[in-house]
């Protein structure tokens, strides 16, 4: 167990270090000129930190969500939060809104995400509590609605606006600078601490509401707090850099395979691995075709999907 713990903490650190040094050009941290220092500290470092934060948020909220929905297919985007965020961000991008300068789009996305999350919460609420099936169906329904509205807006917008919106939606980390990190940090860490404080309850919830009840937890209360934590983390992640597919679905399964499914370990481990995976994906996306950049979301899915399918073949059933 101890070695596993060391590995799980070491991997993101090593990846973070590599992502600073590697890139379109390798920077030797011991012999930097003015330009390299500038690139390392004000371009690569904030970008990699944002990638870590986003990946952590997605990995952890995937782990929590698969638990509360008792569904191995759940990922943070299934609740429609990302489609709400994409819709409001796309409206901002296409209409060229700039009321908050370069914070406009992240703030719009965050507002859209929180709004959608609350809406899903309201719809999933019945008889004094949140019900997993209701949450899931409300999320799926809303995300269909918002995707349709997004398509509608995109099909009536000019080609330039369309391309910008598409690039944002597929995940754009290139604009990450230091100024965004404090906000991301507050929401991601806040959500993570909340979910980890409730990890024991999540373990009980996975066994079923009746068992959870007899173990001394009030399922609806626990589910509410866990849902809030997922909402915070996912919203923060989408607003930091758009939609990054697959991390929330894949990473918790990888960790279960590797370190078991106790939520107390699963949540932080999924966070660390999620951060590491996104950091690698971003490194690849900005290094493979310089001076061009690819959307990081595309890279995570291309790296992630084959591995996921491989896991699926190796194990008979993927569980939560």
């Amino acid at each position, binding site marked *: 167990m101890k070695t596993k713990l060391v590995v799980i903490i070491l991997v993101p650190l090593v990846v973070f270090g590599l992502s600073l040094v590697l*890139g*379109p*050009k390798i920077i030797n941290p011991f012999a930097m000129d*003015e*330009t390299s220092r*500038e*690139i390392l500290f*004000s*371009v*690569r470092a904030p970008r990699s930190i944002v990638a870590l934060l986003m990946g952590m948020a997605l990995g952890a909220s995937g782990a929590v969500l698969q638990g509360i929905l008792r569904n191995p297919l759940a990922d943070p985007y299934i609740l429609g939060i990302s489609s709400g965020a994409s819709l409001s961000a796309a409206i901002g991008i296409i209409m*060229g*809104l*700039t009321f908050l*300068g*370069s914070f*406009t*789009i992240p703030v719009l996305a965050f507002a859209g995400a929180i709004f959608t999350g609350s809406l899903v919460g309201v719809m999933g609420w019945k008889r004094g509590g949140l019900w997993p099936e209701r949450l899931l169906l409300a999320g799926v329904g809303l995300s269909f609605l918002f995707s349709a509205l997004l398509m509608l807006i995109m*099909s*009536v917008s*000019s*080609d*330039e606006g*369309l*391309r*910008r919106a598409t*690039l*944002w939606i597929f995940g*754009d980390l*290139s*604009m990450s*600078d230091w*100024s965004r990190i404090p906000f991301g940090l507050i929401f991601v860490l806040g959500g993570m601490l909340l979910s980890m404080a409730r990890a024991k309850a999540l373990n009980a919830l996975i066994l079923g509401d009746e068992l959870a009840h007899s173990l001394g937890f009030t399922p609806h209360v626990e589910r509410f707090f866990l849902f809030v934590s997922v909402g915070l983390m996912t919203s923060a992640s989408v607003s930091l850099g758009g939609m990054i597919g697959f991390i929330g679905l894949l990473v918790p399964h990888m960790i279960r395979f590797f370190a078991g499914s106790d939520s107390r370990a699963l949540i932080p481990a999924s966070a660390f691995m999620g951060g590491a995976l996104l950091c690698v994906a971003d490194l690849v996306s*900005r290094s493979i*075709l*310089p*001076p*061009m*950049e*690819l959307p990081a979301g595309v890279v995570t899915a291309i790296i992630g999907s084959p591995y996921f399918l491989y896991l699926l073949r190796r194990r008979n059933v993927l569980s939560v």
Partner: protein
Amino acid sequence: MKKVTILLAVLLVCVAAQYSHAGETPKRIVSLAPNMTELLFALGLGDRIVGVTSFCDYPEAAKKKPKIGGMSNPSLEAVIALKPDVVVMTVDGNPKEFEERLRSLKIKTFVFRAKRLREFPQGIREMGAVLGAAEKADVLSGEVEKTLERFRTARQPAKKEKVLFIVWPEPLIVAGPGSIADDALTLLGEKNISDDSRTSYPKYSIEEIIRRAPDVIFIGKGKGMERVSKGLLQRLETVPAVKNGKVFYVSDYLYRLTPRTVKGLEELDRYIGRRD
């Protein structure tokens, strides 16, 4: 020799047959691109235009024309309903399938093939010939050619300035090789730092900008562009262009080939400044 002449004649007939209406002025024209609309107006064909895209906003009169949808998704029904004699399209933004559909419905099309600055005068002439506005097209293309030639010969600076043309700051999209802005910079004898990208409007890497240290940065104008670009420029504050206050907001004339493209060229020239 005689054979060659015959062959040429046959070829000519074939080309002419393709534009069976060549020389004859069509009465009802539908334009599927803003720059085509602008060019049609410049050729004095404005009053024959019966339909334009929703994005055709120049000249003012274009706004009042009936709309047929967007550039990449024009409505086939709307175009047919206008009973056009010819539909003017461009390879730079209109789907090829749409042209095939129109042709299968026996609607004549004229496809404007010029995409680069140097192809522009020829493109204008072809358009004039097919749409029966050859004289005006000759004048216009002559003017464009003269301006291009003037810049080509007048501007051969000893030291090339490194220039970056930003189309949109977030996400960062710049003018790469094959774009008109790149052609313009080359013509002015300057170096576009993003000319080794793989597409004409690449999503660009910020760290590459810092590394390549442009002397001049142009930013295409748009609504609120000063505010949108503020964050990016802060991050580029060590780049010579930003340090020396050589960041200029320019018009969007260089995004598509129009008669105003020449003005865009003059604008860049003015800002870079003559050093010789």
